[in-house]
């Protein structure tokens, strides 16, 4: 009992601070989770290589900030806004491109052959390994088909230059809210809002919804399934790209070939928590997962966050076997 009361009081002490942490991390999870959920909606496929799409974005950010814009010290004002926007576009484009390539090279050939569903999973895992170790090899000393790979990555983590100085904007109940966290949450909300509109109100969005409800009927109604799938991967990739940049900004994470693993698993958990295939479910799941992890920190310590997250997942699935909001993409 002592332990529990101690736990509750420690969470109470840090409630606002942990809510802040949870919301920041949760909105990043939500953005990655969307990629899983969208692809699952149209293909019923767990896109295991999605964490690598996220990983690629960190290298795109490194390239954009370090080489293209030559950032050496934190910027301010208009320069900061322009650089951030430019980096966001580059990250989103790179990740989107990688996601589309992935679909073309690793999934579409399988779709054409009517492969069993587990084959997709193995293909995804293969593609994931391929991408990870491709970035390990890109250290400027390895060759691929007699072409020297550029030195943009490597086995060791590469720090990304800090583009934005951390400033405390205001203090809420004794915990500092920094400009970075505000930025992350705002960008995440904007992207999620745009995505929601995109899926619910546009031409392509209707296609995506149609395919995820009933692919066969959608094809009969004249939906070009191949194109819908490509667009889905592209949108998921763009979200993961933006999430990668935000992850770097708020956590000061380096560009690293293995960095996608943990956020990827967490985001997948979030997608399942909210009901996989359900877009709003993924957003909700991401936020809840972020908050759960954050609240578990003062009580159990950081080493148990993942365990708590998975236990919450199991408990939720026991009572709601198709996730919090159920399966379907919003109709």
């Amino acid at each position: 009992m002592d332990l529990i009361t101690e736990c509750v009081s420690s969470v109470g002490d840090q409630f606002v601070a942990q809510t802040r942490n949870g919301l920041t991390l949760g909105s990043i999870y939500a953005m990655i989770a969307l990629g899983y959920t969208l692809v699952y909606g149209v293909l019923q496929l767990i896109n295991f290589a999605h964490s690598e799409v996220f990983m690629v974005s960190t290298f795109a950010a490194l390239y954009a900030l370090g080489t293209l814009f030559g950032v050496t010290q934190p910027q301010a004002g208009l320069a900061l806004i322009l650089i951030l926007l430019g980096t966001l576009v580059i990250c989103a484009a790179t990740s989107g491109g990688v996601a589309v390539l992935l679909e073309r090279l690793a999934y579409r050939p399988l779709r054409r052959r009517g492969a069993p569903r587990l084959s997709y999973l193995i293909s995804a895992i293969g593609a994931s390994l391929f991408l990870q170790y491709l970035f390990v090899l890109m250290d400027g000393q390895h060759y691929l088909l007699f072409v020297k790979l550029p030195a943009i990555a490597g086995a060791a983590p590469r720090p990304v230059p800090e583009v934005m100085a951390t400033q405390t904007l205001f203090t809420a109940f004794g915990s500092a809210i920094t400009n970075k966290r505000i930025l992350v949450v705002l960008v995440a909300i904007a992207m999620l809002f745009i995505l929601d509109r995109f899926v619910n109100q546009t031409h392509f969005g209707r296609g995506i919804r149609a395919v995820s409800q009933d692919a066969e009927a959608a094809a009969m109604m004249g939906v070009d399934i191949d194109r819908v799938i490509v667009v889905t991967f592209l949108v998921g990739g763009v979200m993961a790209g933006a999430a990668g940049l935000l992850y770097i900004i708020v956590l000061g994470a380096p560009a690293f070939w293995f960095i996608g693993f943990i956020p990827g698993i967490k985001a997948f958990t979030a997608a399942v928590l909210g009901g996989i295939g359900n877009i709003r479910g993924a957003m909700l799941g991401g936020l809840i997962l972020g908050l759960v992890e954050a609240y578990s920190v003062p009580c159990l310590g950081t080493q148990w966050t993942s365990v708590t997250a998975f236990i919450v997942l199991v408990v939720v699935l026991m009572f709601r076997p198709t996730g919090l909001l159920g399966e379907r993409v919003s109709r």
Partner: protein
Amino acid sequence: MTEAEKRPESQDRRPRPRKKQRAWQQHRQRLRESRIAASRRAKSALGESLAPVSKRWVGFKHWYEENGKWTKPLASLLLIGFALLLPYTGDIFDVPLWVELATSGSTLARVMLFSLFALGLNVVVGFAGLLDLGYVAFWAIGAYTAGILTGAQDYAQALTSGAENPVEPEWQMWMWLLFLVALGVAVLAGIVLGSPTLRLRGDYLAIVTLGFGEIVRITANNLDSFTGGPRGIRGIPHPAIKVGGIDIEWGTLIDIKYYWLLLAFVVLWIIAINMLDKSRIGRAWVAIREDEVAAAAMGVPVLRMKLTAFVIGACTAGVGGVVYAEQITFINPPTFSLIQSILILSAVVIGGMGSIAGSLLGAALIVVLPEIFRPLEDYRFFLFGLALVVVMIFRPQGLLPSKRRQAELMSGAEVTAMEDVEPKEGTATA
């Protein structure tokens, strides 16, 4: 996919003159026809030249099936004999790579270890159709059971706390019971994880099992006093048989005897799984895999059958984990990360789900391929990833698919919503 098929998709939104479009389509049609004709020609040419061989092969197969009563056991005996003598074949076949692989005790033992795991996971994934991504958890549970019960954990604890002359644990005869204990512990863990979660449908089960794998690994990492934490457990004794005049000791990692020990388990498991597959339980698994609702309606106890499959998979990994711990003598949490579950799963899928021979082949491939790529050092996982994708693209049903599974694939019973909506050329846009 050829260049010809790719291009128009990206362009067909743009208005294009009808004539050009038609010409383009005709061009593609011609290309496709010529390709099919060429492959047909090649096949028939090959078929003719191989006719005498293939005829005899068909005759032999017929004879083999007809006299199945004694040919099949004989064939299995021959196979087992070959497997027993495999370490010595390096002396006969003087092929460089073969010598390296077939005489390396650690590689052979690893192949057998993964064969055991693949056999177990095959029951879960291939027979019962449950996607388990946390299989490594049971391996870890088996290994840690061995580590803790042999006293190696106490020894490691004493070492770190600076006790004077801690006694390194030695192998006792009762330790052979560890296999049973680990089996029991793994069965318990399987029931604990399985009974609440097996109600979940395919992909939900996947993430829950993945979570379970991570939970076990992180728990082993965090519970310092119980599992040794990140330092792991060292000094797990090698097994030995010392009864009366018999004195067999298993040596270090490269001792070929581990291969034989594991081979014995593999043979035992193959026999058991074969019997299960042909029994009522096996038929129940097939029914569940194909259509759970229909199976339940026909009176198959779905949940219990699923749990049976899950538990059989779990105890296999538990036993394998004990041998692993005794061979390596050192275990720590990073050994049991998600990538191992994924490797075992890819062995099952590459080999062909539901096929016992396939599991063995798949396990051999996932161990041997990285070994073959070893001279390429940094490239090996890169190439391994590529190989996974390529194998799946060209043999989505696996290399040695089970006959039943293959029949399902051919008849299209396996087709799910996503696969049968192959859009025809020229469908209108979204």
